[in-house]
C-alpha cells in the first residue's frame, strides 16, 4: 500500500479541503443581534480571561471527519494494492504483415487497414495497466520511441506500422501464435491475418480481413543463357479467381524495353510467357504487368546481375561431399592450397580436418572439424551430439538451413573464444559458430561431413552456398538473380558499414553486411571502396498473389469469452468505489456544515 498512488494522493487532498472548510466555518462571522446589552458582559469576560482559556479548541467533528477521510483513503490505497496484485489484462496481437495484407478489398480499404480498423476498438479499451504484446510476422523494424511504451503507446505505434512485401508461410504464423500462448487468466491472443489458419490453437481468437480480390501477379521470373549467347526469359503469371483473361507482360533491360507478350491466364490458374532476348551486358532485367489490380507488389519483378566470381582455397584433408558442395555452385573456383602458401586473392579459405597455424589477415575462413586450437577456439574431447538445432535462423550463414532431424554423430566439445556467435548447437555443444579474428571472419563447423547424415541432407549444400555468399559479400555469381523479401542477402564484409539506396529512394545503412529487404524493388548497394551494384528483390510468391483469404470478425467483447475475472476482482472494484464514495460524502458533509453553519455544539444545543 502506498500513499503515493493516485487514489492515495486524491484521498490526501481531502484533508486540506476539510481543514479549509473547517477554518471557513470557524472564521469570524458578522452576526446581527437585537442588542449588545446582554453580550457586553460576555465579551468583557472573554477579554479578561487568560489566553489559555481563550485558545480555540479543536472541533471534535472536524477531527472525526479527518479520521474518517484518512481511513477511507487508506482503504482505497489498500484496495488499489490488492488490484495491483490481481492479474492484469494482457493482450497479445499476432499480426500477419505478409504481402497479401496490402491487397485491396472490394470496399476500397486494404486488408491491413481493415485489420487495424477491427483492432482499434479492442486496443482502445486497454488501460495504462494493461499489457499489449504485438507480435508482427515478419518483424517490424520501425523507429524506436526510446522509453518502453505502455499498452496505449504500443497501440498507437501499431497503427503506424505498414504491411511488408514478405511472403509468410501459414506455419510461421501458427508457430508465432503457439509461442504467444497465454499464461494468465486475464490474457487474450488475437491473430490478425487475411485467411483462415489451419492448426490454430483453440484459445486464439482469429481476426481475418481477407475476401475476394481481383489480382494478377508475376510468380516466376528467370533468365537462362543459351548456347548461342542469347537468353530465354520465363515470366510466370497467376491470377485469383475473379481475374482472368490476357495479361500483357513487358520486359525491360536496364530500362530499355526488350519485348512484350500477351499471357492468357485462367481464373484461379496461371500462365507463362517465354521471351527470347539478347541481354548482352544488361545488369537489371525487369518484368511488369500492364494495368492495375488489388496488389501492387507482384506487378513488377526484377533480376540483377551478379558479376564477380568467388575464389576458394582448400586446405587439409579431402572431403568429396564438401568439395562437391562447393564445386557445384556457379561462379565458385576452388583451388588446392598449402597451409603456408595461400593464394593472395582468395575470398574463402576452407580448412578441413586441420587447424591453421596462422589465420589469414582478412577474408572468410571456414574451419571444419579442426583437430587443434584455432585462434581462441580449443577442442576438448569428443561427445555424442544430441538433437541439433539452429539458434540463429535469420543469420545469412544459416538462411534456409535446417538441422532438425539430422543425425550429427560425434562432435568435439570446444572452448569458444570471446565474441563467438553460436549459430547452431546440440545441447550445450556448439556445432556452427562465427567470430572475428582481426579483420578475418572465422566460421567454425564442428560437424564432420563424413560422419552422420548432414552431408546427405539438403541443408548441407545450402549452408555452404551461404558461406560462399558471405565470403563473396553477396556478389559471386555472374548470372541474373534476385532475392525474395525477408530473405537475408549478403551485401558486404561483416562489420563494415554498407550504404544502400532502397527502392523508395531512402538511404539505408547496413552494419552487419547483411540486408534483410522488406520491400520489393531494386536496392543500390555501395560497399566501401567498391563499385555500386544492384540487388533485385522480387516477391514471386504464388501463395501471396493468389491469397483469397476469408473474413472472420472478433466477438463483441473478446475478453468476456477469453477470460474469466475472479469474483475478488469485482468485489475489490466495488469496495474501492464505495470507499471513494464515502470519502466524497465526508467532504460534502464538511461543505454542508460550512454552508449551513452546522456544528456539533449546535446539534447538541438543538437536541437539548
Amino acid at each position, binding site marked *: 500500500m502506498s500513499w503515493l498512488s493516485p487514489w492515495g494522493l486524491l484521498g490526501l487532498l481531502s484533508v486540506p479541503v476539510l481543514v479549509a472548510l473547517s477554518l471557513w*466555518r*470557524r*472564521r*469570524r*462571522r*458578522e*452576526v*446581527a*443581534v*437585537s*442588542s*449588545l*446589552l*446582554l*453580550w*457586553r*458582559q*460576555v*465579551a468583557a*469576560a*472573554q477579554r479578561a480571561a487568560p489566553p489559555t*482559556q*481563550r485558545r*480555540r*479548541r479543536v472541533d471534535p467533528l472536524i477531527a472525526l471527519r479527518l479520521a474518517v477521510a484518512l481511513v477511507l483513503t487508506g482503504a482505497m490505497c489498500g484496495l488499489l494494492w490488492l488490484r495491483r496484485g490481481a492479474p492484469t489484462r494482457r493482450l497479445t496481437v499476432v499480426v500477419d504483415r505478409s504481402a497479401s495484407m496490402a491487397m485491396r478489398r472490394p470496399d476500397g480499404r486494404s486488408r491491413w487497414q481493415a485489420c487495424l480498423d477491427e483492432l482499434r476498438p479492442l486496443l482502445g479499451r486497454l488501460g495504462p495497466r494493461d499489457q499489449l504484446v504485438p507480435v508482427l510476422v515478419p518483424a517490424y523494424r520501425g523507429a524506436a520511441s526510446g522509453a518502453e511504451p505502455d499498452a496505449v503507446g504500443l497501440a498507437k505505434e501499431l497503427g503506424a506500422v505498414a504491411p511488408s512485401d514478405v511472403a509468410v508461410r501459414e506455419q510461421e504464423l501458427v508457430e508465432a501464435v503457439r509461442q504467444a500462448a497465454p499464461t494468465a487468466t486475464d490474457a487474450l491472443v488475437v491473430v490478425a491475418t487475411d485467411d483462415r489458419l489451419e492448426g490454430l490453437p483453440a484459445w486464439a481468437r482469429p481476426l481475418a480481413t481477407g475476401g475476394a480480390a481481383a489480382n494478377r501477379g508475376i510468380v516466376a521470373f528467370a533468365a537462362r543463357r543459351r548456347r548461342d549467347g542469347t537468353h530465354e526469359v520465363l515470366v510466370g503469371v497467376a491470377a485469383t479467381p475473379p481475374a482472368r483473361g490476357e495479361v500483357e507482360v513487358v520486359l525491360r533491360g536496364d530500362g530499355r524495353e526488350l519485348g512484350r507478350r500477351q499471357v492468357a491466364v485462367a481464373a484461379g490458374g496461371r500462365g507463362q510467357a517465354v521471351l527470347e532476348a539478347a541481354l548482352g551486358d544488361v545488369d537489371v532485367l525487369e518484368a511488369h504487368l500492364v494495368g492495375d489490380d488489388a496488389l501492387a507488389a507482384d506487378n513488377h519483378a526484377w533480376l540483377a546481375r551478379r558479376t564477380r566470381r568467388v575464389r576458394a582455397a582448400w586446405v587439409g584433408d579431402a572431403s568429396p561431399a564438401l568439395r562437391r558442395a562447393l564445386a557445384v555452385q556457379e561462379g565458385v573456383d576452388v583451388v588446392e592450397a598449402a597451409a603456408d602458401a595461400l593464394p593472395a586473392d582468395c575470398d574463402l579459405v576452407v580448412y578441413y580436418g586441420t587447424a591453421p597455424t596462422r589465420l589469414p589477415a582478412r577474408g572468410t575462413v571456414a574451419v571444419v572439424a579442426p583437430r587443434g586450437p584455432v585462434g581462441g577456439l580449443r577442442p576438448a574431447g569428443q561427445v555424442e551430439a544430441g538433437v541439433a538445432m539452429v539458434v540463429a535462423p535469420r543469420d545469412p550463414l544459416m538462411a534456409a538451413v535446417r538441422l532438425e532431424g539430422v543425425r550429427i554423430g560425434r562432435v568435439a566439445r570446444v572452448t569458444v573464444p570471446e565474441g563467438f556467435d553460436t549459430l547452431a548447437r546440440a545441447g550445450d555443444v556448439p556445432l556452427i559458430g562465427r567470430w572475428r579474428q582481426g579483420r578475418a571472419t572465422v566460421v567454425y563447423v564442428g560437424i564432420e561431413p563424413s560422419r552422420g547424415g548432414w552431408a546427405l541432407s539438403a541443408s548441407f549444400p545450402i549452408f555452404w552456398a551461404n558461406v560462399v555468399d558471405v565470403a563473396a559479400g553477396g556478389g559471386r555469381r555472374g548470372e541474373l538473380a534476385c532475392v525474395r523479401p525477408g530473405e537475408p542477402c549478403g551485401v558486404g564484409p561483416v562489420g563494415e558499414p554498407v550504404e544502400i539506396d532502397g527502392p523508395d529512394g531512402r538511404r539505408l545503412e547496413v552494419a552487419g553486411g547483411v540486408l534483410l529487404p522488406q520491400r520489393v524493388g531494386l536496392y543500390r548497394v555501395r560497399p566501401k571502396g567498391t563499385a555500386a551494384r544492384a540487388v533485385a528483390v522480387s516477391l514471386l510468391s504464388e501463395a501471396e498473389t493468389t491469397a483469397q483469404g476469408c473474413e472472420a470478425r472478433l466477438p463483441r467483447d473478446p475478453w468476456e469469452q477469453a477470460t474469466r475475472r475472479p469474483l475478488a476482482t469485482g468485489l475489490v472494484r466495488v469496495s474501492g468505489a464505495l470507499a471513494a464514495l464515502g470519502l466524497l460524502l465526508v467532504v460534502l458533509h464538511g461543505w454542508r456544515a460550512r454552508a449551513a*453553519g452546522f*456544528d456539533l*455544539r*449546535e446539534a447538541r*444545543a*438543538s437536541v437539548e
Partner: protein
Amino acid sequence: MPGPSPRGPRSPSLLDPAFLHKLELLEILFRRNVVGRREGDRPGRQRGGRTEFADYREYSPGDDLHYLDWNVYGRTGRLFLKEFTKREAVLVCVLVDASASMGFGQPRKLDQAKRLAAAFAYLALVGGHEAQVGAFAGQQVRWSARFAGRPDVQALARFLEPVEPSGGTDVFAALRAFRERAAERSLLLLVSDLLDGGAPQRGLRLLGSRRHDLAVLHLLSPQELHPPAAGPVRLTDCETALGESLVVDDAALRHYAAGLNAFCEGWRAFCERHDIRYLQASSASPFEDCVLGTLRKGGLVR
C-alpha cells in the same frame, strides 16, 4: 358581561374570530384605584348612580329622602339609606415597543407584541372601557385614537397592522410622552423587550407616582433566551450598529444565560417594588397560550 355582537367583529388579520370569542370570556383586572371619566360597565369605587346597589347607611339630616328604604324602616323602625355604585369606563392604554430590536426573533417579537396589544385592547373594548394603543420607536410615539365599543376593534387592527420595527429603544421617552398625554389615571400595559440602555425604570417610577395602573410585558425571542453556539463572531447591534467580537461557545453561552437571568430578575424585582405587574413571554409561545396563560397568570386578566 355583554355577549358577543350579533354582527361579530370583522376578522382582522391580527386576531381570528374564534379567538375573539374566547377573549370575550375574559375580563381585565385593575389593581390601582383608577377612575373612569365616563359611565361604563365596570362597577366603580365612587358612589353614585342609580342601578348598582352597594350598601346601607344610617340616615343623616340633609340626605336625599328618595334613597330611604321604607321597608327596613317598617321592620326595624330606624331610617336607612340605600347606596349605589357608579359604573365607569376606564382608559386602557397599550404601549408597544416598535424599535428595530423588536424585529428580531423567529417569529418576530413585534408580531407577537402587536397581537397581544390588539387582544388586550379588545378585552378593554369588550369590558366597556376605552382603549388606546401607542407604538414607539426612538423618541417618537404614535398614538391611536381612543376606541370605545367592540366595533372599534377594526380600527384598532388597522392602526397596529402597518407598524414595522425601526429606530432605537427609548422607553423613558415613550412613558414621558404618555404621562404628558394622560389626563386621567388609567391602565398602561407596556409591551417591550426592555433592551434599552437608557433609564426605562425611571419612566415607570414617574408614572407610578401618578397612580396609574402599570403592567410590563417583557417579550423575548427564543434566540435571545437560548442563543446558539456560533463560534467566533462579530456581533452587531441592529439599533446602534456597534460591534463586539467574541467567541460564542459553551462558556460564553453559560455566561450569557446568567446575565439574561439577572436582567429579567432585576426587572421583576423592580416591578414588585413599585406595584407594577411584570409578565414575561417568549415570542415563540403560541399566541393563545400567551394570552390565556401568561396574562391570566400575571394577574392582568381573569
